[in-house]
Every structure is written in C-alpha cells, then in structure tokens.
C-alpha cells in the first residue's frame, strides 16, 4: 500500500529542528513545547497506521534518487519491525522531551538542546522507516552526529568535549565497516540494498561473500551498539545531559545496531552468526562485571546498557531475532526510566557518586518507587516486562545449547546484583550529608514522565507474553513460545541469589570470600574496576603508535621536506634578485614613461571638468545637436 504520509513522521521533528535552529533564541521555553508537539504528532501519526502492520501488509512510499542504467530508489516502508521501532522512539522520545523541560531548565543553550533532540528523533525515525541500506546509513550517520553534539553539549567541560570526540571517532571505526559492507552489497552480482530483496540476495550470493558482507555490517552494529571491542565510547558518553543518556545512549540509538542486525538478518550466515554470538557474549559478561564495581550511578547504568545490548546481540547470534527485538523494546522502556530516575537523583542532589548518596527513598518517594519498578523489570521479576523478554531469550538459548543457557542465567543473576546494589546504596541506608539544600522530589513535569514510563516498563512486556503475543504477530513469527516453568523458576532463583549477594556484599559490605581466595578476588575486583584496562590498552597499542608515527613524520617533515623547501626558496631568492634588477632598470622606466604621458594628457583634459553640472549639461545638449545634424 502506497502511503506518502509516511514522510511526515520524520518530517515533524525535522521541521521542529529547522525552526529551533533558526529561531530558537526567540522562542525561549516554547522551544521545548515545539519539540514535544512535533514528537507527539509523529507518535499520533504512527499510531493511526496500526492496522497495516498488524495485517502483515507493508506501507510503502518510494521515490527515485539517482537515475542510471538501474535507477536508485530511496523509500520509506513500514512493516511490523519498523512500526515497533517507530512507536518506541516516538513514545519514549516525547516522554523524555517532557522530562527535559524540567531537567534542562535554566540552561543557557535550552533551545539548542531541543533542536539537537528533534534532529536526533528525525534521524532515528528515518532510520526505522528506511526501506534500504543507503537511506538507513544516511540516518545512521546523522544520529552519530547528534550523539556527538549532545554528548559534548556542555562543551565548556573538557571531559565532555573529549567524550564527544571519543564517541565520534570510535563509532566511525564501525561505520567504515558498515559503509564497506553496503558498497560490497551494492557491487556484488545480484546484490541489492532494498531490505525487501535481501532474502533473495541471500540465496543468490555465494556464502563466503555473504559472510564477509554480514560481518562488515555487523561491524557497524558493534560500533553503534557499543559492543566489545568498540564499547569504550558509551560509558564516557554519560558526560552528556542525562535525558540524552536516557534517549540516545540507552533506549534508542544504541539499539539501532540491534535493529540493523534484525533488518539484515537474512544476510547472516552460520559463520557470521558465530562471531555475533561470541561478541555479544563477551560484551554481556564483561560489561556486567564492570557494572558491579562502578561507583558512579550513570556509569553503572551505562555498563548495564552495554551488558543488556550484549544480551540482545547474543539472541541475534543464536538466531532468535524476534526475542532480541522483544528485549530491545522492553529494555528501551526500563532503561530509559532508570536513566531518568537517576537524572532525577542527580538533579536533586547534584551528586552522582554512590558513596555520597544514600537514604533517598524517604525524600524522593516517586523517584525511588519508579527506580525500583525499573530495576525489578530489568532483573526479570515474574510478571514485569523484563521477565518476558529475558525469558524468551533464555528459552532460545536452551534450545541452542545448554551451556549458553547457564551462562546467560549467570548473567541474569549478575544483572540483578548490580542493579540491586545501585538501588540499595542510592535509596537506602544512612542519608549522606548534603551541603547546601536538602534533596527534594523533582517537579511534576519531571515526575509525570517517570510515572508514565514506569507503567510502560512494567506492562509493555505483556505484548510478548506467552498466549497473548501481538508482538510476535507483528514480526511475522507465528510459533509463539510457551510458558516454561523450569526456566521461569531458575530465573527467579537467579534474581533471588543476585539480590541477596547485592544486599550482603554491595550494601552491607561483607566480604564473603574465604581468606585464601581474597587476594585473587581483590585482583579481579581491581581488574573490573579499571574496566579491564581496555582504554589503557588502546592508549598503548593504538594512540601511542599513532603519536609516534606522527612524531616520525614531523621529523621527516623538518629535515627532508623543509630542507627541500628552504633550498628551493634560496634559489628562488637569487632568481628574484636578477628579476628585480630587470624590473628596476627596464620595466619601471617604461611604466614611468607611460604614467608621465598620461598625467600630461590629464592636465590638458582637466580644464573641461569644471565640476559644474550646468557645463556638463551644456556639453550634452551641444552633443545632441551635433549628433542629430551629422548622423542623419
């Protein structure tokens, strides 16, 4: 079904961006409402077209971009997968925009923030709507730009500026791979960039080529979704404003990598799926252990995001892409809520170090409650969203290989442990001493979106629960998985163990390890607390060699290139001496002679120029008469 209105969905936020970037200064606090209204309009439009994705018939709007022997089509297309992304982005986006009006209140670049925010939403909606890899890549890069702009939004802080640069450069590494993959896909025989044509392409292209292409595309996903080894930018990205962390670096943009894999899933061969699984598993476990040791609220959440994204990639790797998408949706809601609640804490206390927080449950009851709901949802308490999606992945893992099931179960326990530790240390225990004012609950404009998101975080999982699963119908998957009691029981057990460990070790600070294991445990803790020295490794292996190479090149520059330049300069200087003599003795004299002649002539002509208009006029009349007499 052709539907040109599809273009309006990203056009609303794009128009908001254009207005805000041009006239934002004059709009003041209305700029926020402009962004919110644009997003709400996009949400409304998305919701009105619900019937087509459910009926399994895609909505299409295509136009010709380049004309050649084979015209390049760009287009928008809404099927179940992209409709889900649209709903997630617009609903969470508009809630976060509401929240931001409170959080960013009084910022000198208030309207600029909402301009970037709108541009990001337009790009993300464009990415979800794209029906081919090219348009997707364009929006992908736009999102990267917005991410950079928003991370370094407070660019007066050197750390924020550096974090923005790091995010931009690191994701660029992945994007090069994605671009190479797109080029390969366009140039191989029978290749096509249209998503609808990918299953056919997968049948016609040779398997090794397909593996290469899919791994290159996966490289892009690794960069954007911050998977190991390109994960280093995401924790630093927490330098940006917290609503940005919630929307871009937790709920939507980082999930774009997972979405990309789901979109191009037909291209992935068993060999490349192995790589996907390995990378996802490494990220899941590795980021989970780091999250256990971090002491900054936003960094704990950042590593938890990494870990959850790893879980989605694992699900992709074992072929359960609907489960991965399901977890993407539930994760978007509860992680956005976690970040916003954390932002509420930071807004109230101006503090994000765990050691300086505590006992906030009494002063901030709403924030504390929604944080608890989101934490339980993420930990997978039976009935909450996270349970259903995690359960779907665990079931798929059990079908794939028992060992993977146990590893993921351990990961679930770890998830519970770090989020419970964060919750307990932040909201329970003795209230930390505060300098200045006492912490207070955030204003209504911030807490209302929190409550709305809490409802989403608790209930959104029911759309994919066994027995009632419109979600999987949307994705075109019909074998609904049943409710598996042992798996549910085991994951509840993991939750119990994880939270108990968090209570004893993380909150009460008891060391459970027997004495002979303590040095090893301490070493492990140090390793995790230093993020496994990955940044230092990059510093040593990549950045220092590049600097050394730069130094070498600069020496080469000085000695060889500069020498050559100076030598040629000396020759040039001598040559110009000769030329100057010729200039002075011959050319100048000619020129002066011309000048003198002209001046003499000018003296003669000058008496005519009396400066009196009437003289000129008289001459003009005489000229008219003379011309009229002579010319005829």
């Amino acid at each position, binding site marked *: 079904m052709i539907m040109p209105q599809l273009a309006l969905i990203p056009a609303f936020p794009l128009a908001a961006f254009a207005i805000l970037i041009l006239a934002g200064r004059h709009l003041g606090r209305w700029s926020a409402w402009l962004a919110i209204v644009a997003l709400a309009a996009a949400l409304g439009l998305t919701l009105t077209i619900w019937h087509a994705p459910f009926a399994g018939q895609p909505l299409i709007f295509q136009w010709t971009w380049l004309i050649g022997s084979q015209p390049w089509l760009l287009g928008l297309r809404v099927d179940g997968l992209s409709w889900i992304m649209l709903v997630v982005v617009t609903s969470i986006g508009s809630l976060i925009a509401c929240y931001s009006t409170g959080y960013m209140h009084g910022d000198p670049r208030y309207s600029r923030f909402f301009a970037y925010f709108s541009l990001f939403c337009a790009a993300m909606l464009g990415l979800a709507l794209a029906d081919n890899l090219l348009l997707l890549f364009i929006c992908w890069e736009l999102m990267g730009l917005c991410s950079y702009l928003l991370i370094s939004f407070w660019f007066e802080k050197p750390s924020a500026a550096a974090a923005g640069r790091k995010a931009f450069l690191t994701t660029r590494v992945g994007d090069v791979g994605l671009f190479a993959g797109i080029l390969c896909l366009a140039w191989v025989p029978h290749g096509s960039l249209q998503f609808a044509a990918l299953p056919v392409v997968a049948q016609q292209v040779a398997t090794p080529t397909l593996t290469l292409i899919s791994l290159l595309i996966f490289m892009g996903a690794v960069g954007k979704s911050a998977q190991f080894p390109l994960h280093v930018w995401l924790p630093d990205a927490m330098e940006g404003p917290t609503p940005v962390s919630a929307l871009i670096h937790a709920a939507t943009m980082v999930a774009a990598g997972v979405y990309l894999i789901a979109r191009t899933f037909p291209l992935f061969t068993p060999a490349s799926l192995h790589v996907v699984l390995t990378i996802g598993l490494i990220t899941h476990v590795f980021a989970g252990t780091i999250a256990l040791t971090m002491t900054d609220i936003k960094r704990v959440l950042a590593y938890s995001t990494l870990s959850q994204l790893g879980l989605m990639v694992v699900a992709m790797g074992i072929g359960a892409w609907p489960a991965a998408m399901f977890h993407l949706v539930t994760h978007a809601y509860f992680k956005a809520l976690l970040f916003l609640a954390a932002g509420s804490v930071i807004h109230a206390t101006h503090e994000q170090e765990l050691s300086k927080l505590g006992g906030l449950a009494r002063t901030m009851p709403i924030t504390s409650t929604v944080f608890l709901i989101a934490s339980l949802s993420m930990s997978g308490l039976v009935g909450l969203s996270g349970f259903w999606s995690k359960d779907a992945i665990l079931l798929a893992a059990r079908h794939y290989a028992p060992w993977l099931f146990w590893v993921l179960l351990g990961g679930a326990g770890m998830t519970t442990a770090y989020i419970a530790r964060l919750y307990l240390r932040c909201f329970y225990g003795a209230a930390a001493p505060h300098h200045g004012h006492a912490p207070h609950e955030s204003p209504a404009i911030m807490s209302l979106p929190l409550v709305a998101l809490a409802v989403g975080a608790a209930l959104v999982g029911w759309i994919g629960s066994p027995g009632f699963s419109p979600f999987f119908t949307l994705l075109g998957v019909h074998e609904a998985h049943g409710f598996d009691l042992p798996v549910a029981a085991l994951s509840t057990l993991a939750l119990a163990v994880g939270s108990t460990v968090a209570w004893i070790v993380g909150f009460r600070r008891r060391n459970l390890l027997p004495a002979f294991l303590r040095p090893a445990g301490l070493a492990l803790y140090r390793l995790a607390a230093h993020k496994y020295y990955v940044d230092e490794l990059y510093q040593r292996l990549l950045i220092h060699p590049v600097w050394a190479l730069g130094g070498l090149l600069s020496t080469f520059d000085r000695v060889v290139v500069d020498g050559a330049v100076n030598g040629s300069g000396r020759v040039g200087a001598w040559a110009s001496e000769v030329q100057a003599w010729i200039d002075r003795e011959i050319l100048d004299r000619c020129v002066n002679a011309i000048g003198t002649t002209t001046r003499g002539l000018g003296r003669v002509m000058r008496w005519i120029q009396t400066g009196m208009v*009437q*003289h000129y006029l*008289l001459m003009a*009349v*005489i000229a*008219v*008469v003379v011309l*009229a*007499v002579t010319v005829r």
Partner: protein
Amino acid sequence: MNTAAVPLAILSALVLVGALWVVTLHNLFRAALSLGLVFLGIAGLFICLGAEFLALVQLLIYVGAILVLIIFAIMLTNSWQRETLPASRQRLPAALAALALFALLARATWVLAWPAQIPGGATRLKDLGLVLVKTLVLPFEVISLIFVVVVVGAIAVAAPRKGQS
C-alpha cells in the same frame, strides 16, 4: 482662422510668455509665479483638447501642490541668496544650443503629415480609468512604490546627520 482657434492662440501666447519669464526673470519669486501662469495655460490647453480631467489634475497637483512647494523652497533658502547676482557666464552658448535644438526639433516635426484639424469630442473618464487599472496596472502600482521611495529618500537626504544642526 476659425473661432475655435482663438482661445488656443491666446493660451499658447500665455504659455510662451510665461515660460520665457520663468527662465529669464531675475527675481526667482516672480519666475515661480510665471510658472504658475504656464501651468494655468497648459490646463487651458488641456480643456481645449478635451481632456478636462487632466486639466483638473494639472491645476490640483501642479498649481496646488508643486508650485506651493517650490515657493516654499524659495522662501526657505532666501537667507542664502545674495542681492547682487551676476548672470550665468554661459548664457550665450546656452541660448545658441537651445535655439539649435529648437530648430532641429521644429524641422523634424514640421515636415511630418499632421491631420489638419484636432479631432473633436472629449475623452471619457471611464475609459481613462479602465486603461489605468487594466493595461497600465503595473506602471500604476510602480508609481505608488516610487512615492514611498521618494518620501523615504527625501527624508533620508534632507534629515540632519549627526554632528550637524
């Protein structure tokens, strides 16, 4: 010479004499009054030619507005005038050039075949109005634009700059 030509001849003489005074009278104020005479004569000629509306406009705008403005200008700049003013040094060449120009124009137009008599009847004002708002609507609008430009420009040119009084 028929009877219709009599007022035409009188008016022509009035215009010619008035114009001569305008360019030759030493006293500028009198020259301006002579210009009023010329305007009246032209308005009369317009009536003879059957263009009553234009005659009315001529009186209203030229005599009523422009002449008043010019007299106002003369009075405004009175303090700058000197009592003894030597005549222009280029009177003779100017007279020769103007005469030559007239001879040229007269020779060019005299030989043309003109209708013997001026067609009678008056222009219908309705036709004039229709032409103004139909075929000539663009120049008509441009004129109004020019008015705005003139008002702004005149203020900009005449307004005292900073540091001047």
